[in-house]
Each structure stands twice: as C-alpha cells, then as structure tokens.
C-alpha cells in the first residue's frame, strides 16, 4: 500500500471531519439547549453555499463573499427561529420533525425559484487553487488544507466562545436550566434566537467551504445532514466535545473505508467477492459504527451531564 496515498486519504478524512463538525456542532447546540430537533439544518448549509456563490459572482472575491454570506445566513437562521421554530419549543419531537421537514421542502423550492434547477459553481481565487508540496513528498490541494485549517480554527473559536465568554456562560446556563437562567434575568428568547443563528452560521460556513469543490446544488444538505446526525448520536446529543471527536472519527472512517476496504477484504476473501461487497460495506460502515457505539453506550460517547 502506498504511504503517500494513505496520508492523502487521511487528510481527506480530516477535511470531511471538520465539515461534519461544523454541521453537527450547530445541531447538537440547538438540541442541547432548546431540546429542538432541526431537520432543516441542512437547508441552511445549502443557503450558505448559494449566498456565497452569488456574492462571489457579484463581488469577484471569494473571501469577501464568505464574509458577507455569513451574516446573511445568520439572518435567515434568525428569521426561521422567530417565524416557525420559536412556536414549537413546547411541542413534542414529532412536531419538530414534521415542521422542519416542511421547512426543507420550502427551502429547496425557494432555492429552485431563485437560482434555478442547475447547481452553481464557485471559482476559487488563484492563491487557493493550487497544490501544496507537503513534507514527505506528498502533494495535496491547497484549498482542502485551507478547509481543514479554517474548520479547526472555528472549532477552537467555538470552544473559547462557549467556555470563556459571557455569552458562552449564558448559553451554558440556558442549556442546564432555562427557567432558572430566565429568572436570573437572562433574556431566554433572545438567547435561543442567537444560538439558532450561530448554528445557522456554522452550517452555512460548511456549505460555503464545500461549494467550490462540489458546487452549490438543491438538496445538497439533505444527504450530509444524516451523516451529521450520526455524528451527533455517536458523540452524545448536546456535547460539543463529543461532536468534535465523533466528527473526526466518522470523517476518517468513512473516507478510509471507501478507499481501502476492498484491499482489506481481498486479504480474507476472493478478489471478486471483495470488489462486489466493498462498496456496499464501506457505505454502511459509519452506520455499523453507530450501532456498535449505541449497543454499548446508548447515550453516545460523551453523554451530557444529567440535568
């Protein structure tokens, strides 16, 4: 097996992992604090990507487009919270699931009405669109390295925000006991809107970062959101640290499985049997991992402390 190929796939797995973390951290925050199941989180990922694509066309600068698209996605998230989600906190999970399923249909159709059925590509600026020669003779696309760096930076920033700042203190207070936090003078309604918008920004950022590779397309969030759910479940719902560990784990396992499972299987079965079963098995790998984790720890790897 080629060591360079393994290293490259490790980096690809890491890149998928940080994207999954950006999606899953918002999901897990929103669930941990508001006890709200948001299926439409993937729609915000899509909306972020389309905003970024249009703004890149208009401004001619990818970075400027990201800087403008982030607050725009936050506004969309805040609007969704104020118009729909806010009315559902007191309802059961079935209502959450159904209403946000309705939101997905609305978002997908609105995007089709505004941007048309075709996807939108984003052209990378020249400085991001090359290859980097890494130590060990490895060649890896610059932009994918940037995604990994940016994702890890956002994860660190999120940690600082939640653990070191006053807003983070309020978020944690809201998570552990909303009624008490409210009684102590924290505006819970505002806090919930902020947290939802924060989750939207991170989902949107993930969409913006992936769009130059895959292009922005309708329904792009509907597939990756399920993987983000698996991350949230494996990590433990409500735990940002769990989401981080699980996101990297699942990113790596999924990527490595797709690349190398057939080689591993060829050691134990015939070449033909390995080549037929490897794609199906590697597609199922993360779900099997999830089932295994749940069989032993039904609350996930890092269960949040009991309330």
């Amino acid at each position, binding site marked *: 097996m080629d060591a360079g190929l393994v290293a490259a796939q490790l980096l690809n797995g890491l890149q998928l992992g940080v994207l999954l973390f950006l999606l899953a951290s918002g999901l897990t925050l929103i669930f941990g604090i508001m006890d709200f199941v948001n299926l439409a989180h993937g729609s915000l990922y899509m909306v972020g990507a389309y905003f970024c694509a249009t703004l890149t066309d208009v401004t001619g600068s990818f970075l400027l487009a990201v800087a403008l698209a982030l607050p725009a996605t936050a506004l969309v998230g805040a609007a969704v919270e104020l118009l729909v989600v806010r009315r559902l906190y007191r309802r059961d999970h079935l209502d959450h699931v159904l209403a946000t399923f309705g939101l997905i249909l609305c978002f997908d159709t609105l995007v089709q009405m505004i941007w048309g059925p075709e996807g939108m590509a984003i052209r990378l600026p020249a400085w991001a669109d090359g290859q980097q020669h890494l130590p060990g003779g490895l060649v890896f696309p610059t932009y994918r390295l940037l995604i990994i760096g940016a994702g890890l930076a956002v994860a660190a920033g999120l940690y600082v925000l939640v653990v070191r700042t006053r807003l983070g203190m309020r978020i944690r207070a809201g998570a552990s006991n909303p009624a008490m936090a409210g009684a102590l003078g924290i505006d819970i309604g505002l806090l919930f809107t902020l947290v939802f918008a924060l989750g939207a920004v991170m989902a949107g950022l993930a969409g913006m970062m992936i769009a130059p590779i895959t292009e922005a397309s309708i329904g792009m969030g509907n597939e990756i959101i399920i993987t983000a759910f698996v991350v949230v479940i494996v990590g433990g719902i409500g735990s940002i640290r769990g989401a981080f560990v699980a996101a990297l784990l699942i990113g790596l396992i999924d990527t490595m499985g797709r690349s190398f499972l057939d080689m591993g299987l060829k050691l134990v079965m015939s070449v033909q049997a390995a080549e037929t079963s490897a794609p199906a098995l590697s597609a199922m790998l993360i779900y099997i991992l999830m089932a295994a984790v*749940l069989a032993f720890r039904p609350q996930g790897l890092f269960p949040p402390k009991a309330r």
Partner: protein
Amino acid sequence: MNRTVGWLLLAALAAGPPLALAAGQPFYVDILTRLVCLAAAATSLNLILGHGGMISFGHAAYIGIGAYAVGIPAYYEIYDGWLHILLAVAFSALFALATGAIALRTRGVYFIMITMAFAQMVFFAVVSIEEYGGDDGLVIDIRSEFPLIDLEDGLTLYYACFAVLLGTLYLVHRVARSRFGMVIEGAKGNERRMAALGFAFYRHRLAAYTLAGALCGLSGAMLGNFTNFISPEMMDWTRSGELIFMVVLGGTGALFGPLMGAAAFLLLEELLSGWTIYWQLPFGLLLILVVLFARGGLAGLLEGRRG
C-alpha cells in the same frame, strides 16, 4: 364521524377503478393504486407511531426492501409471487427486528435519528450495489406471478393492493385493540408506570416494530409490482418523512387516519403539481401550518378537536 368517513372512503376505493375505466380514465386507476399502497404503508407506520409513540423516521426502508424483494428475484427471472411476498415480509421483519433491537434501547430524539440512519444505511447499500442498477434502479419486466391472479391486468393489480390495504387495516385494528396493543399504548403514555405494573414493554415494542416493518414490506412489494421500476429513491429519508406526514395529516392513532392522510396527501400533490412546478412550496407551508394549528389532523378536525 371519523369511522363513517373512513368507511365511505373505503367504499369509494372499492368502486372507483371500474368506474374510472368505464369513464375512459385509466390514469385514475394508477393514482388509486399508488394511493392504496401508500395508505397500507402509512397504516403500518401508524401502529408504531400512533399507537406506540415510536417516531420511526426510517419506515420507507421497508417499502424499499419489499420492492427489491420483488425486483431482485425478477432480475434472476424468478417470478413466483408467493416467494416474492415471503422474501419481502421475511427480510423486512428481520431488518426491523435487528435495527429495532438497538433503536428501541434509546428514547426520544435518539430514536428518531437512529431509525433514520439505519434506513439511510439500506439506501446507501443499495445505491452502491451496481449489479442491481445502483442509483439508476431496476426494471421489473414481469410482475409477480400467482395462480389464477394476473397482476399484469391493471384492475386485478389494483384489487390485490386493495386487499393488502384491507388486511393491514384489519390487523392493525385487531392488534391495537388487543392486550398487546394496550401495553404499547400504555408504554407510550407512561413508561415508568408500565414498568411498575410489571410489563417488560421493550419486547412488546420490538414485536410491534417488527410487525409494522413486515406489513410495510408487503405494501412495498405491491408498490414495486405496480411501478414496474424500483430504485433507491423509493427509500430516501424524505419518503419516510412523507409517510409520517400522511399519518399525522390523517390523525395519529385513528384507524382510518393514515388512509385519509394518504388520500389528502396524494390529492394535494396532484392538484398542486398540476398548478405549478413549485408545488412543494405551498406543500411545505401547509405541512408547517398543520403542525402549528391542526394537531389532531383530519381525524381531529372531523371530531371537532383543534390545536
């Protein structure tokens, strides 16, 4: 009131297709066949969702398993209908038993996400098996063959599907009214109290979950026969969302609720998609409004309950 409307609907379904043919509108027989199959699937979901409070977001997987239980043997030119049905029911029940055993150890949002993830696992597994068409799906050249019954005849096929619907309704009705049904209904209301009364309701839930899966697999086999073409898209997670919507639209836990819900769902789909290509927007908005303002569904409205 509810029951009256339900029986009227059944009577209309029994008499509808010959009338449509007599009026020279065979197109309506197709719509009604799809309606009857989806209503049977939604009715099986109602057993666990409505009566058991288990929000399974992966029920479309059983439609897919049932359909592929017809499609894969047909690919090998095995057309024995009884074998198809046996495979559809057995594999659906097996999959429900295996995944339910893990999923039912969890509660609330974990359960929703896990059932969704397991369904997605089947989806991706089928997508990656190129032998059976993968993403592109599989054409069923000859429908299941039964002695004396010729499913190639549209009207016969319709009445076979209708018989499956009637059987599913009857079985769900009997199970829900039995002591067994009372146990899962009681566990939905208050787990602790049921445990204190000495019921090991995990086993009851698992049995109900397995039965619902098997019944849905049967309706999937009929749907596969009807469409003559099966693809992984039949078990996309959004299909599961639509099944939940049918159950909730009709009214959870009401015997004829899913039937009314499926009828209303397909009627809306036909009307709106004939009116605009962006029909999913009003559809999604309606879904959100139903959740916010008409929680009892159609059955609730008929009974005069609201919100």
